[in-house]
C-alpha cells in the first residue's frame, strides 16, 4: 500500500514508549475547557481529512482499537512517515 518502507516498519517494533502523547490530554483541566479542546481537535481532524492529510488523532483511535499492544507514534514520527506515503501513489490533485 505504501511506498515508504519506514511506514511499514513502524507498526512492527515492540512497545517501548509508555502512554505516548495521549497522556497529555488526560492531565488537562476538566470541564468546559476539555470539551472545547475536544471540539477543536475534532475540527482540526475534519480539516485534515478534507485536505486529504493523514489524521493523527484518527490513527491513534484506530491503533488503540485494533492493536492496543502496538506503540503509539509521536505526532512528529507520524507526520514524517505518512505525509510522504500519502503522495506516493498516483495523482492526488486534478487539473
Amino acid at each position: 500500500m505504501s511506498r515508504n518502507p519506514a511506514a511499514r516498519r513502524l507498526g512492527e517494533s515492540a512497545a517501548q514508549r509508555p502512554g505516548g502523547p495521549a497522556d497529555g490530554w488526560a492531565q488537562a483541566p476538566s470541564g468546559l475547557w476539555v470539551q472545547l479542546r475536544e471540539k477543536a481537535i475534532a475540527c482540526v481532524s475534519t480539516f485534515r481529512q478534507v485536505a486529504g492529510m493523514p489524521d493523527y488523532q484518527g490513527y491513534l483511535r484506530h491503533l488503540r482499537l485494533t492493536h492496543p499492544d502496538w506503540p503509539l507514534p509521536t505526532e512528529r514520527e507520524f507526520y514524517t512517515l505518512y505525509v510522504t506515503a500519502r503522495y506516493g501513489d498516483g495523482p492526488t490533485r486534478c487539473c
Partner: protein
Amino acid sequence: MIPLLWSLVALAGAAGWAMLALGRGETVSAAWLILAAVGTYLIAYRFYSRFLATRVFGLDNRRATPAERLGNGRDFVPTSRWVLFGHHFAAISGAGPLIGPVLAAQFGYLPGTLWIVFGVVLAGAVQDFTILVGSMRRDGKSLGQMAKEEIGAFTGLAAMVAILAIMIILLAVLALVVVNALRDSPWGLFTIACTIPIAVLMGFWMKAWRPGRTLEASGAGVVLLLLALVGGQQVAASPTLAPLFTWAPVTLALALVAYGFVASVLPVWMLLAPRDYLSTFMKIGTIALLAVTILVELPDLKLPALTRFIDGTGPVFAGKLFPFAFITIACGAISGFHALVASGTTPKMLRREEDARLIGYGGMLMESFVAVMAMCAAAVLDPGVYFAINVPLAKLGGNAVAAAETIRGWGFAVTPEQMDALARQVGEASLLGRTGGAPSLAVGMATLFSGAFGEHLLALWYHFAIMFEALFILTTIDAGTRVGRFMLQELAGHVWAPLGRTSWYPSIVLSSLLVVLGWGWFLVQGVLDPLGGINSLWPLFGISNQLLASVALCVGTTLIIKAGRARYAWATLLPLAWLLVVTLTASWQKVFSPERRIGFLTDAAALKAEIAAGTLDPVRGGRLIFNDQLNAVMASVFVVIVLAVVLSSLREWLRILRGGTPVTSAETPFVESAYVS
C-alpha cells in the same frame, strides 16, 4: 407533496433554460443561468444518479467497503460522507473548470453552458461515479490496475502511457496559463513568489516546530499570503523593486521548469504538503465566496448567447463550435483525470457503499457548478474587453489603437482609453493580449467581488484572483511532476530494475529531470508560439483529457458488463460514443485540417513555404515546423492509444456477451458490514 416539489424544481430549471435560449438581443440576468443549472443538477441527482446507484451498480450498504474491511487508520479510513465530499471535490477541482469555460465563452455563453450542464449530468458525473464504485468494489485499485486486470495487460500498459503523456501536456498548458498571467506583472509575480517561502515556513512549522498544529500553521500561512498580496502593490509601485519582479515570458517559463524540478526532488513535507494544504482551503474558500457573490449580486450577462465565432473564425482559439467547444471545456463537463482521483484516495475512505452516489456523482455536479460560475465571470465582462484580454496581441494588431479597431471589426465596442483605465484599476501595465483565460477570469471575479465589497478594491481582488489560480496551478505542477516521476520510474523499472526504486536518488533526479524537460519543452514552445501557445496547447490538452475519459468509460463499461448488468451498459456507452466522435473529429482536424490556424501539418507546410520565399528566418521557422510536427505526433499517439483500448475492450465485451468462456473479475467478494444490522 414530494412529487409536487420535484415538479416545481423541474419547472424552475426549464424556465431558466427558456430565458437563456429565448432572451436574444438584450442582456440576461445570471439568475437564469444559475436557475437552469441548479434545477438540472437537482433533477439529475435525484433521479438519474439514483437509477445508477440502484439499478446499474446495485449499491448495497450491507456490503462492507474497503475502508471498513482494510481500515488501517491512515489511507483506509471510514470517513463521514460530507467530509469526504469536501475532500473529493477539493481533489478533482483545479484550474481546468475555471479556464475552459472562459476560453469557450468566445462562442457566447450558451453553447458552453449547455455542454457543462448536460455533459456533466449524462457523462462526467457518470464517469466519476462508475470508476469510484468500480474501485471501491476492488479494494481501491487504480484505473490502470483495473484496465490491466479487467481488460488485459496491453490495455493496462496503454492506459499508463496515456496517463503519463496527458500529464506532460496538462502541466505544460497550466504552466503556460501562469506564465501569461504573471508576465510583466511585478505585483502578481511578487505575490506568487512569496507563496514558496510561506509554504516552506508552514512545512517546518507542521513537521519540526509544532508537529500537528496544522490549523495554526495554515492560519499563519493565510495571513502571510494576504500580507504578500498587499505587499505586492508596494513592490509594483516601487521604482527599485518593480523591475526586479518584471520578468519576460521565457524567463518565467524557465523559472517554472526549475521550480518544478526542485519541488519534485524535495521531501514532500517541506513544500508540497503545506502548499497543498494552503491551496485546498484557499480554493474552497474562494469558490464559496464566488458562489455567494454571484447569488447576491445576480449580475447581467453582457456577452451574447451566441457569437459569430461559432463558424470557426474565433480569435481566442481556432475551430468550429463542433467539435471545439466540447474539447475546450473538458473539466467541468467531463474530465478523464477525475478517474485517477476517483480510483485513488477517495474509494479507500468511503464509509458505506451508498455514499459513493453523493461523492462520485454529487462531487462532479459541484465541479460543474464551478465551471458555470467561471462562465458567469467571463460573461459579465463587456465582450470587447473579453476579446481584448483573451486574443493574442499579434492578432489584435500589436497596440491598443489597432486592437480597438480589430475588435470593432468583429462587432464589439472597446476603446483604448477603456482598456488603459481598466489596466490601471487592476494594477497592471496592460491587459491586452493576456491569453490563457486566467487574467480575464480574474477581471471578471474582481468585478463581481468589488461590486459586492466596494469598487476601490478592484486591484486587490484582481491580484487575489490571480494568486488563487496560480497557487493551485503551482500545486498541480508540483504534485503532477512527482506523479509523472513515479510513473516514469515504474515504467523504467521494467527496463532496468534499479531505476524503478522510487527512493534511489539517481533515479529520482533522472526521472524528475525527464518529466520537467518533457512539459518544459511544450511550455517554452507555447511561450514562443507567434499565435499564442493556448491556440495549439489547450486543444491538445482537451483532446488528451477527453481521450483519457474514453479509456475510463471503456473500463467502466467492462465493469458493468462483468457485473452481469449489460442491459444498462448504455449509461457509459452513450457518453463513450459521444466522446469518441468529438475527440476523433477534433484530433483529425488538429492534424489534417487544410486551414492553417487549425491543422498542425498545414501550418508546417505554410511555414516551409515562407522559409523558401525568404520571409521567415530558417532557424526560427525550423523550430516552429518541428513543434507543429511534434504536436501532430502527440495528437496521433493519443488517438492510436485510445483506438487500441476501445478495440481491445470491445473484444472483451463480445467475448463475455457470447458467454463461451468464464468471466473473471477482480471484484472483492461480499463481506457483511458491521455498520448496518
